[in-house]
């Protein structure tokens, strides 16, 4: 494949950029990339994945020609580290793990574009994984408890209540 800029040298850099849901492919050679001053992996100050991402994050439909009034996404702010959504969309990096929570309402479309998916199916940390399991158990038991009370099976309800307390203690200790 030839470079799309000079049509002379073979294209050695391949990128996909998605802006406003529109996919653009880049196939260029390294000397054209150097000339354009971007897209050079592994060099300081040159292209970085974050430049590309900021284009990707800027998909607010109204944001095209600087329309009046800030879009709602730009008012989001992480209360843990103070990063705003607009900063995040400029630098393409989260400030802390809580950003994921505060920007949650905007993240599904982004992850869909980058990964084609929005939720994790891989590895789970062993200890936190245990905690997740216990939490699910507690939710189930609480439902059983409610049912026992409605059925007026108080002895069973007391048993379940003890079980829940036991599990809650287990989580608290970690």
């Amino acid at each position: 494949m030839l470079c799309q800029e000079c049509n002379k040298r073979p294209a050695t850099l391949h990128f996909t950029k998605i802006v406003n849901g529109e996919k653009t492919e880049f196939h260029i050679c390294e000397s054209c990339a150097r000339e354009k001053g971007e897209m050079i992996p592994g060099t300081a100050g040159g292209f970085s994945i974050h430049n590309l991402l900021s284009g990707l994050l800027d998909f607010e439909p109204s944001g095209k020609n600087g329309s009046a009034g800030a879009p709602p996404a730009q008012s989001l702010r992480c209360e843990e580290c103070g990063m705003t959504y607009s900063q995040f969309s400029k630098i393409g990096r989260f400030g802390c793990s809580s950003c994921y929570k505060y920007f949650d309402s905007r993240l599904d479309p982004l992850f869909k574009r980058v990964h084609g998916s929005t939720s994790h199916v891989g590895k789970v940390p062993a200890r936190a994984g245990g905690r997740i399991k216990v939490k699910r158990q507690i939710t189930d038991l609480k439902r059983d408890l409610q049912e026992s009370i409605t059925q007026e099976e108080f002895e069973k309800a007391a048993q379940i209540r003890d079980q829940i307390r036991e599990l809650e203690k287990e989580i608290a200790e970690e």
Partner: protein
Amino acid sequence: MPNLRFTEKALSDWMRSDAADSEIVISSRVRIARNLQHYPFPMLASNEQSEEVLNKLSEVLQYDDVHAFGDFHTLDLIDIDDLDKRVLVEKHLISPSLVNESRNGAVILSEDESVSIMINEEDHLRIQCLYPGFQVKEAWEKASAIDDAFEAHVDYAFDDRRGYLTSCPTNVGTGVRASVMMHLPALVMTQQIGRILTAVSQVGLTVRGIYGEGSEAMGNLFQISNQITLGQTEQEVIDNLHSVVLQMIGHERTARERLITDSRLRITDRVMRSYGILSHAAIVDSKEAAQRLSDVRLGVDLGLLDGLSITVMNELNVMTQPGFLQKTFGEDMRTDERDIYRAQLIRDTINAANQS
């Protein structure tokens, strides 16, 4: 005094082994990105916070289950001079951003340099396993086991729905980036490379040319890695990369066989010319070195050249880079002087290999 033997020789110990498919696959690498709970990511962390992260993660090394992975050496970036940092980058043991952007950055290296654990890079923790040849599954298993050992002692930032939380949205989920460095001269020569790389990018993988100093392309080297970290299991990612690389090895092999059957004389001439230049030239710039070394590497694999091994070629790939040349011949070197020393070093290495 930090332990700097890691920058004294070009070749990591692991490079000296004869690995699977090493004429085509130079190395396999798996990197796992992790962050600690309750600390801002390195970019926003205060000096105190990043120091705490460094201490917490360094402590983990003292536990026996982590120690079981070998003897580790911790190098604080602040103790390493610029040239040594550069050599570590050229050996792929640390990333340029650990050098340029890190606060309280450190790298923990295993004795054989196959494991490199970066602290306070873009994420708090990056576990990297770098193996010679086509061993991406082995690299994943090792990296994952080290990840488990760390996880037994520290709390990672993890979310039920999003998985492992990372600084960059492109790493969230598994935090796993697996990549394979391939030498594909025959696919380039027969002009099939574009078609194949396009196909590769359509199955969730990215391809990059390999760059030396600035943006000088290195001869026919391509890095294939996964793009997706969310919505696929680690095993799926590794298996996908593995099967695509396996197919590419097949295509490159076929192309090499075709070259040798259809144009034996032409290819022999090309290999021998490059060999002649490398063993006699007085000035070689980095771009020419990369291209000529690629030709000679192909010649070694096709059995057109005796005396040289793939290991020597791996060594030359690292040794001809600017940081290493300066390390060997002195720091105050202009670009034109570097080209003279590069030529000398290549000549000497080839002659030594021929005599042994």
